């Protein structure tokens, strides 16, 4: 008998008691749903928490400062930088060549003046007053002086930047800018009101000190997004193409004056190690090259361990549910064997071998388990998505980045196959019992 024949017969066997089959499948489906929902929620929470720790960037991210390393700080997550040191193209090349480094993203920073009228009309028609801002005094002539950070936006996914509202500036754009939550505070807004500043136009000037005056080159930039960014200190984030000319203009000042900029060509770099467990080696390598680094590696590793424990516990609960459900399969199949003794005898009388009968019942169990597993996994993912919607609603109301529930395909496939395999194991005893029934059952009254 081929597998196709066995599967066909098994499917007929399952269909013969639709009520029982449905209940059995439902029990497996509910367990699989619980299993996949718990894993999805656990995995999503893990991603969210780690993402929060990594400030939206990769877990293996390392900030490089334009400073020499302080030997006493090398193993610290938030290492205190040593004396300033220029971070130039050659240094970046050396860092990029380290075996534990996957990528290096240079950052350029400069000081800019932002023209801010006393009252700003936002795109939604409301107005805010800059006098309501916190912690910063308005300069004369309605100017705020800010740090503008430039980064390669094409590689934003490798940067510790989370978009809270809107989007990032387009790569290469010189007229788009994203503002940080700190900048929102200047307008008296909090992160829950981030959407309100989208579309706001800012006049951003790069100042330059001449012998007898200060002149600025002005660019009108549109706020396209609000971000939480930790790539470098700065309230404004723009494509590196927009920041380089502004910095070059300011650096050409005749004297340091009030806009003194560090001489380092790059204000920092964001390095991504090949994996979290290679962060330490990458940091050591960068320290050997001569630069100070910081990375939340110890914190992330520690939190990751706790989250893994939570995941194991939740998966364990799901597995227990699955195991209980598979006992239902054992029970249903034992009942089927009792009811079908004569049928099994007839099958043997017309030539079925013990292993044909064994296969038949194992496949029946597998079919019940796999169908239940498939239905349950899909249902569980849906359930997790529903939970995600509720959680997102809460997170967004708090001005936080939402979550995206996701169950890795491998886990989903493993859920379905696992349910099938558990069901086959659960069916082993009934199947064995069926296979051992004597052919004589065919002629028993």
């Amino acid at each position: 008998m081929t597998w196709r024949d066995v599967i066909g017969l098994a499917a007929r066997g399952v269909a013969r008691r639709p009520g029982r089959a449905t209940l059995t499948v439902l029990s497996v489906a509910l367990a699989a749903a619980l299993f996949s929902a718990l894993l999805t929620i656990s995995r999503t929470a893990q991603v969210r928490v780690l993402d929060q720790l990594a400030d939206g960037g990769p877990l293996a991210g390392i900030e490089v400062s334009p400073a020499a390393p302080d030997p006493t700080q090398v193993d610290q997550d938030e290492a205190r930088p040593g004396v300033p040191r220029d971070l130039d193209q050659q240094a970046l090349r050396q860092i990029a060549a380290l075996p534990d480094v996957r990528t290096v993203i240079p950052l350029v920073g400069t000081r800019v003046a932002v023209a801010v009228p006393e009252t700003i009309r936002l795109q939604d028609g409301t107005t805010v007053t800059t006098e309501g801002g916190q912690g910063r005094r308005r300069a004369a002539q309605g100017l705020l002086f800010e740090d503008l950070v430039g980064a390669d936006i094409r590689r934003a996914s490798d940067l510790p930047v989370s978009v809270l509202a809107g989007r990032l500036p387009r790569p290469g754009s010189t007229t788009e800018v994203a503002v940080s939550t700190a900048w929102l505070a200047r307008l008296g807004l909090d992160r829950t009101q981030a959407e309100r500043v989208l579309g706001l136009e800012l006049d951003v000037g790069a100042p330059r000190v001449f012998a007898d005056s200060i002149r600025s080159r002005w660019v009108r930039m549109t706020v396209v997004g609000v971000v939480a960014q930790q790539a470098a200190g700065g309230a404004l984030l723009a494509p590196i193409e927009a920041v380089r000319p502004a910095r070059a203009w300011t650096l050409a000042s005749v004297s340091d004056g009030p806009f003194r900029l560090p001489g380092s060509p790059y204000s920092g770099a964001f390095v991504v190690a090949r994996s979290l467990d290679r962060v330490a080696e990458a940091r050591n390598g960068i320290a050997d090259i001569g630069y100070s680094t910081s990375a939340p590696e110890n914190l992330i590793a520690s939190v990751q361990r706790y989250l893994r424990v939570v995941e194991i516990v939740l998966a364990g609960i799901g597995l227990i549910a699955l195991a209980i459900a598979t006992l239902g399969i054992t029970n249903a199949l034992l009942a089927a064997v009792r009811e079908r003794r004569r049928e099994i005898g007839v099958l043997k009388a017309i030539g079925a071998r013990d292993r044909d009968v064994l296969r038949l019942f194992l496949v029946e169990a597998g079919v019940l388990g796999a169908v239940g597993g498939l239905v349950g996994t899909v249902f569980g993912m849906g359930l997790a998505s529903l939970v995600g919607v509720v959680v997102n609603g809460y997170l967004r109301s708090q001005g936080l980045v939402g979550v995206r529930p996701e169950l890795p395909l491998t886990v989903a496939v493993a859920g379905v196959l696992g349910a099938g395999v558990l069901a086959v194991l659960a069916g082993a005893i009934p199947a064995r019992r069926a296979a051992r029934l004597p052919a004589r059952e065919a002629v028993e009254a």
Partner: protein
Amino acid sequence: MDGGVAIAVRGLHHRYPAPEGVLEVLSAVDLDVDAGGYVAVTGPSGAGKSTLLSVLGGLEALQEGEATVGEVDLAGLAGDDLAAYRRTTVGFVFQHFGLLETLTAAENVELAATLAGVRPAARRARAAELLDAVGLADRARHAPLQLSGGERQRVAIARSLANGPRLLLADEPTGNLDEGSATTVIELLERLRVERGCTLLVVTHNRALASRAPHRVALAAGEPGAVAS
């Protein structure tokens, strides 16, 4: 007669464990059936008729004695060998029909060929031919529950012939049928025996049915028997 297998049984004993000890159902039974023969096995309940059929059909392993069906010595068979013997040499017809309710008439007939590893197209053709032979070509796609008792037994007969057996064993084949259907079924068995060249053993309580067979074997409960066809 061509076809069929000769049966030779010598000193056959068969016992079952019972609460009160070992129950000897067959005791020193001798039996000879010519190739292509037609024998009715009669006897009271508990005489061992079905057990004799089970042993000759390979439903149970031989415990003691000798039994040869054609060239096959049943004493040496067990497990898969016994299954192969049932598949290739024997066709069973049961009182309860033994049809799988979830399969159609054609699929029930095909099932026996499926177990023998016959390819789908060939077994479909064989099932169609056999259902035609038992007069049920137009009921091929009906489920057993949609057929009368007589029709179900005719499907079971078609199934018993699916692998071209040389020995047909029928255990009370008309026990669940009305008189008209019983006559139809037994005439069908007799006709197919001749057409297909099989040896036919029919276990029955029915004297009229038994009297149709040219040879009759009577088993007495608990007594040794030496019978010949």
